[in-house]
């Protein structure tokens, strides 16, 4: 009994002390969970929760799958997006076909010329039924001629309303599902991915061609103003690097003084221009607030350099003429239709731009001659020789042997383009030889034949005469300049004051701007450009006046590259003995070609003169040097 009681009290004491212990311990444990107040000044990040492991996921596995219901609908009936308002089923086949509503009544000259330019383009179709896009021009704001609802309107489905100039007609009908391309659309009405935002075009904007960018040097001139501000009434104010004394806290004590800014009427020569949209009066406040100057000063020279060049590229590629603006709009819509085979963004954003890098040719940048360096790739080491045999139709046996002798030659294509029957026997060559029976048209020479397997083409005329080492050296040079034409014989253009037009000469001068395509290396992409991007009228011109074809090809390449072609050395004696070009210019027995007229017609169609002159020739490193012939790799180039 006693021991039981003793044991009882013992247990009591034990449990009491343990209770105490637990109480005290628990208290301190609690304190552990709630640490003392954070020390002042210490950074408090997001807490690491002790029970973070126990948190539940935001969605339970069973919750994720949902049954599809009808696709999300527009909140208000008027809004459109690409999927819901454009019917791509009409656009199967060869891309975007555009029908343009003919103008009603009297129209302005601009309107007529824009219509003509679309009609001449590769997008045009004459039947509204076959068209995938119906284009409604809404142009002549000041004449008061407002278009009424067109016939095939169909609530505006697959329609594009093009407003080139502001102050459009009052809406005579609901735009509905039609896309709108206009300048400065408002955020409320603009439907991203559906409407197209255009640049604001002045009335006098050139229809085609357009002035080239005014940048004459890559980097800014030292000493020119850093920033020009647009002011009211079209004036400009320039601010210098010294005028940015405001701290970055949202306000300046005072305006940059008049001593540091200058007022000018015309667009000044400054590195940056601040455009403030519709509110020029806000510009100076904006400047204070955002400290544009400070930001610009911080910008590295590398970035300024890149920005300057990009402005010029964008202007030249998409902005400089009404025609470019319209074609860009159509190209944007075509890219939406093409989906996976649209232009990659690189093609849009680096020279020569998406209008000149056709996505129908390829969507891989490395297939084009322009992006080898960006892609870290090189042009392949083989070429295809394309020999055009026009009248009188002698198989060019010697030429075939000389070309086939080049280690870089992959194949020879003979384009038989005369009335005589195809010879049945062709010389044995180390490379495959294919004969194509042509259509007797000169423009056939630049057709993108699927049989051409290499990037490089050596274009030849049956009467051309080249040696193997000339071919080898010229091809090596082409590999260094794959976007240009590399040729042996040259000609030049010049401004003829007497006739007030462009002239053409094949005489040997100190400079040249064209190479003859009867013996020239170039990228096969130019065949695609020639055939698919030139207006039909120009290709017809080439067929009617065969000597024009050289000029035309040189125009295309120069318009794309903005660079002159390259000349390589050519055996002298043959140059004088055998004329390379059929009926080519120079002191030849044949009558001189109607080149001057042709060059002017082509220049008019391009809207500007893209040809550029070069004063150099690329020779082998030891060319005609007084050193041992044994040292020279291309010694046969120098043989008299």
């Amino acid at each position, binding site marked *: 009994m006693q021991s039981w009681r003793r044991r009882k009290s*013992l247990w009591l004491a034990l449990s009491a*002390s343990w209770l*105490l*212990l637990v109480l005290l311990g628990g208290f*301190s444990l609690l304190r*552990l969970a709630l*640490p003392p107040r954070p020390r002042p000044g*210490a950074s*408090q*990040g*997001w*807490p*690491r*929760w*002790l*029970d*973070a492991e126990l*948190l539940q*996921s*935001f969605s339970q596995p069973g919750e*994720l799958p949902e*049954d599809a*219901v009808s*696709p*999300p609908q527009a909140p208000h009936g008027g809004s459109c*997006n690409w*999927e819901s308002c454009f019917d791509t089923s009409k656009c199967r086949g060869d891309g975007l076909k555009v029908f343009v509503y003919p103008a009603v009544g009297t129209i302005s000259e601009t309107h007529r010329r824009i219509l003509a330019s679309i009609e001449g383009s590769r997008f045009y179709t004459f039947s509204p039924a076959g068209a995938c896009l119906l284009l409604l021009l809404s142009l002549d704001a000041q004449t008061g001629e407002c278009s009424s609802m067109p016939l095939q309107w169909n609530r505006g489905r697959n329609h594009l309303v093009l407003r080139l100039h502001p102050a459009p007609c009052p809406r005579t009908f609901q735009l509905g599902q039609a896309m709108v391309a206009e300048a400065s659309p408002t955020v409320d009405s603009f439907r*991203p991915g559906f409407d197209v935002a255009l640049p604001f075009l002045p009335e006098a904007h050139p229809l085609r061609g357009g002035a080239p960018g005014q940048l004459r*040097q*890559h980097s800014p001139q030292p000493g020119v103003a850093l920033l020009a501000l647009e002011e009211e009434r079209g004036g400009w104010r320039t601010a210098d690097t010294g005028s940015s004394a405001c701290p*970055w806290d*949202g306000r300046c004590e005072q305006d940059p003084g008049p001593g540091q800014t200058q007022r000018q009427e015309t667009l000044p020569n400054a590195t940056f221009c601040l455009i403030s949209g519709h509110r020029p009066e806000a510009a100076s406040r904006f400047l204070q607030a955002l400290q544009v100057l400070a*930001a610009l000063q911080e910008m590295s020279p590398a970035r300024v*350099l*890149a920005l300057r*060049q990009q402005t*010029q590229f964008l202007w030249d590629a998409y902005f400089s003429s009404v025609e470019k603006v319209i074609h860009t709009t159509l190209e944007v819509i075509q890219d939406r239709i093409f*989906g*996976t085979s649209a232009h*990659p*963004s690189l093609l849009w954003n*680096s020279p020569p731009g998406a209008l000149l890098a056709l996505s129908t040719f390829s969507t*891989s940048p490395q297939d084009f001659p322009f992006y080898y360096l960006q*892609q870290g790739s090189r042009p392949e080491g083989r070429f295809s020789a394309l020999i055009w045999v026009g009248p009188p139709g002698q198989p060019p046996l010697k030429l075939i042997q000389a070309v086939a002798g080049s280690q870089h030659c992959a194949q020879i294509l003979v384009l038989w383009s005369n009335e005589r029957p195809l010879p049945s026997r062709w010389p044995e060559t180390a490379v495959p030889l294919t004969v194509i029976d042509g259509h007797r048209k000169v423009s056939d020479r630049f057709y993108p034949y699927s049989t051409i397997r290499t990037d490089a083409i050596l274009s030849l005329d049956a009467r051309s005469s080249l040696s193997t080492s000339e071919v080898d*050296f010229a091809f090596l040079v082409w590999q*260094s300049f794959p976007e240009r034409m590399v040729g042996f014989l040259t000609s030049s253009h010049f401004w003829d004051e007497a006739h007030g037009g462009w002239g053409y000469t094949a005489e*040997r001068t*100190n*400079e040249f701007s064209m190479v003859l395509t009867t013996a020239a290396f170039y990228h096969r992409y130019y065949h695609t450009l020639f055939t698919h991007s030139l207006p039909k009228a120009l290709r017809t011109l080439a067929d009617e006046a065969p000597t024009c074809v050289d000029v035309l090809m040189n125009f295309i390449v120069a318009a794309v590259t903005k660079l002159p072609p390259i000349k*390589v050395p050519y055996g002298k004696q043959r140059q004088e003995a055998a004329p390379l070009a059929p009926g080519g210019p120079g002191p030849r027995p044949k009558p001189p070609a109607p080149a001057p007229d042709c060059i002017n017609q082509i220049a008019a169609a391009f809207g500007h003169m893209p040809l*550029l002159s*070069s*004063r*150099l*020739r690329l*020779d082998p*490193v030891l060319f005609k*040097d007084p050193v041992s012939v044994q040292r*020279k*790799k291309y010694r046969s180039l120098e043989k008299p």
Partner: protein
Amino acid sequence: MCASVKYNIRGPALIPRMKTKHRIYYITLFSIVLLGLIATGMFQFWPHSIESSNDWNVEKRSIRDVPVVRLPADSPIPERGDLSCRMHTCFDVYRCGFNPKNKIKVYIYALKKYVDDFGVSVSNTISREYNELLMAISDSDYYTDDINRACLFVPSIDVLNQNTLRIKETAQAMAQLSRWDRGTNHLLFNMLPGGPPDYNTALDVPRDRALLAGGGFSTWTYRQGYDVSIPVYSPLSAEVDLPEKGPGPRQYFLLSSQVGLHPEYREDLEALQVKHGESVLVLDKCTNLSEGVLSVRKRCHKHQVFDYPQVLQEATFCVVLRGARLGQAVLSDVLQAGCVPVVIADSYILPFSEVLDWKRASVVVPEEKMSDVYSILQSIPQRQIEEMQRQLFMEPARRENWSAANHQMNSLIWPREQWDSQIINDRIYPYAAISYEEWNDPPAVKWGSVSNPLFLPLIPPQSQGFTAIVLTYDRVESLFRVITEVSKVPSLSKLLVVWNNQNKNPPEDSLWPKIRVPLKVVRTAENKLSNRFFPYDEIETEAVLAIDDDIIMLTSDELQFGYEVWREFPDRLVGYPGRLHLWDHEMNKWKYESEWTNEVSMVLTGAAFYHKYFNYLYTYKMPGDIKNWVDAHMNCEDIAMNFLVANVTGKAVIKVTPRKKFKCPECTAIDGLSLDQTHMVERSECINKFASVFGTMPLKVVEHRADPVLYKDDFPEKLKSFPNIGSL
């Protein structure tokens, strides 16, 4: 020790009945209690010392202890989302202030638990994912704990899944945040918007001007340039690590792995499978799995069981089809597996589409063309597919890049929250924004490719002329001859003499030759070779002619022609004598070659034209220690310049005219063979050194040089533009 005293007070009642033997128990007991107390006392200090040595600045507490906030039923509700909001109308940039690092600052509100008048909670306090997300922000450079410095505010109210919250009350909770101000500069994250039956594509919680980073935006709800579209988090991607798989053909051409598809869509897909056989695989939920197998990790086709997400790696294209919601978590799985997503969800705004070029990594097919999807995919060339696959692999690479700070979170989504901050950052500081290419180009493409800083094809006008920069030390007589010769070149517009001798003053003004263009003398602080390539403010033209003070043999025609050639190649080095680098197979290293070869890869800068931008690059952007090496060795500055230009442009030099060497009249006496050989060894060493610093051999070899069009042609000399082109 208050507790033990208390014990002792209770104690005396027991003690009289105690025997000595029992006393031992109590002493033992007491000691235990005492020990326990000491232990707990120590315990009070011990964990704190651990904490302060490790994470002294991070709170450790339980989520159950967060303060509770009662929301009265009539507390204010924000306006519905304002659809017309744009950065310039609804966002207050002034709060973002000037930040030298051009990073916006993000503040996170403290976590609270919101209850209504009846004490019923408004939502789950916080989900695992949202906690991790906030942790990621808190660990990033964007985070600030100073509410007054913040530009963006992130509420800790978890709205990732709309279904788990009470809409009205959540909105009320938002409205009482201390800096709410109609939601200005507040950023909300939501992944599962909408709810049955109509499933809105954006969060239904009224949020006024707050920015929304949402998964599953449609073109109707997405505010272009304001909201940010984010991917829907997939728990699987976080758990499973898939092995990397290179581009190339896969076993299946097209695969659909989603469960819970709408029956109509499933029919369409199954029709494709019937039509195209083995190359199409349509998977579904597994119905007959044994117990214990995680059903989310398995997919079935008839009776065949596949591991998910591993099976995604076996397909070239994977279907990402919309459900009731546009954003689907499967997109994350598919991206991780390197399968090209085929997105079939009309009007869906793809994640981060503001900066990511989805054209390069996915195929978007309209819903109405679903039955044609196979032929659409077949029309894509294999090379383009491989490019897309490569583009997908860049995603993990970038992920690591961005998640360096919080690599313990190996999930697909959280580092991207930092992308959100970066995207908004780009909008606020557009001039410091990351370019489209930087967002989209995989590092692999960058390697070997160049982006030429002078990419615009442009022939500068001849009228601009060039600036000749003569580096000199003390050869005054020779210098004056060079000045006289160079001044005869028609296109010279300015002459700059860099006086590199600190011990001697340049000659007096009156002694200098009188020339027709401005002549300026710059004195340098130190006799360094790199002074010749400094971007002096005095250089006003783009073209620079670097010329040594002993180069007197170049003719005026030769120099003028060199300038004309530079105009046609303004992004290249245009020089006279050419040099070559060769691989020495015996020594296994690069060798410098000055023999008369058929090839060139460098030009000497003893006389060379180049764009003045390269002076800036040489002085400020030369990689590694090359500049110091050149100054220390007093040699190879020209090789360094050749490396620099070739590396940045990817182009070869242009050698003009037959000139093979600069004959230096004064040095004929010491022009011995041994000197020549040490020179060659030193130059070879430079090439090897520079190639290792650049990590590659940037020099390009060509076999051509530039001559005047009529050079050595049979043509009357007096009619040639450059008759006196000089000798070797």
